[in-house]
């Protein structure tokens, strides 16, 4: 397997800003390419905050986070261009169809592949003509996944993407993820608190507790019929 580090965090400590007292501390880990890492912790442990540190244009931490060897805040636009973000909060245009969303928003990426997006939707059995507002939660997640994959990111960030999903959908979802990372050119960091997922699907597990990053370990997933 590949040992190239795709994403690393070194001595990352959040900065407190104004009345916001919550911050993350002691985050250090290195994620090789071609793996799925789970960020686990209770609600309020700081999983979403960690994603915010990466995605926010303003550097809200000390220390260093690198994507493919480059500091993520050195050229943040490049970083965002290399990240596929899937979130339970849908920030897309709800009143437009999946295809319209891709046409409208895909243009911001340097390498957005509309044909690939359409192909992905077809594989996931989602109509591109369907308005996002009318999609089910699972369909929305799949749409986001197709949108993220269409610009071939180096890193997928998934904030509680599988929360509230039925097991059938989750198996499907992980099958897709495994397919994305099989050429080992990208990795996935996803936040979850589902024990079943941790045991069966994740290659690495990072644990957060009240903002502190308390452990990072390798996990041996027992993927029962999930591999694509």
């Amino acid at each position: 397997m590949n040992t190239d580090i795709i994403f690393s965090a070194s001595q990352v400590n959040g900065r407190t800003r104004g009345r916001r007292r919550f911050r993350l501390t002691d985050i250090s880990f290195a994620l090789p390419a071609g793996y799925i890492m789970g960020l686990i912790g209770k609600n309020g442990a700081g999983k979403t905050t960690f994603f915010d540190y990466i995605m926010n244009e303003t550097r809200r931490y000390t220390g260093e986070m690198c994507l493919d060897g480059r500091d993520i805040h050195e050229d943040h636009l490049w970083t965002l261009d290399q990240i596929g973000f899937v979130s339970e909060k849908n920030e897309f245009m709800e009143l437009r169809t999946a295809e319209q969303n891709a046409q409208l928003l895909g243009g911001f990426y340097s390498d957005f592949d509309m044909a690939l997006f359409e192909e992905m939707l077809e594989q996931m059995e989602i109509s591109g003509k369907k308005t996002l507002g009318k999609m089910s939660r699972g369909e929305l997640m799949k749409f986001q996944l197709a949108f993220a994959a269409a610009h071939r990111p180096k890193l997928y960030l998934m904030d509680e993407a599988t929360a509230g999903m039925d097991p059938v959908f989750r198996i499907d979802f992980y099958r897709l993820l495994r397919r994305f990372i099989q050429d080992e050119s990208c990795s996935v960091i996803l936040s979850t608190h589902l024990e079943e997922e941790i045991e069966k699907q994740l290659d690495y597990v990072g644990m957060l507790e009240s903002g502190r990053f308390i452990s990072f370990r390798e996990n041996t997933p027992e993927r029962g019929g999930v591999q694509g």
Partner: protein
Amino acid sequence: MKQEDNKKEMMEKQQRNVIREFDKELFTYTGQVAWFMPGIISFLLICLMAIPFQEVGPGDYIIWVSGCNFSAWISYFVLQPYLYTTDTLSPRNTTSVTYNKLRYLPVSRKQYNRVRLGYVIRYVWKLTLIGLTVQCLSAFLTTGTVTVWNVLYGIGILFVAPLLIGWLQLMINR
């Protein structure tokens, strides 16, 4: 060093073009009604400019208050179709602020604001030209002279104030 600056400038220009393309789409979806309002307010402002500065006393509150109000609303309505989407109409909507829909995409906030402030500048620049002409003409016809105050009055109400309000609106729109 100069080459790097040129490259950065080119990338920023490219980013602004992408934002403009996105805006064109956004505008066709949300803009029709919103553009009606700046038209009405501009008309009222130009009517206000027909009163020469020499004739406006410090006690003419209606004129001052209307002038300030109109110049604030101009930038608000010019920016409206670009700062918000119609997603507020959707029951599952989490945000209608355009930037919130773009913040996880490779979009620079700086270029985003720059493009939008450009729309205000383009609009108020034309308005200022028309308004100033009206102000100077009416001052000349009623008092026989055009002073520097006529020009400053027009620029202040029609250009500086809307730009300032527009800039503030962009800063707080998150």
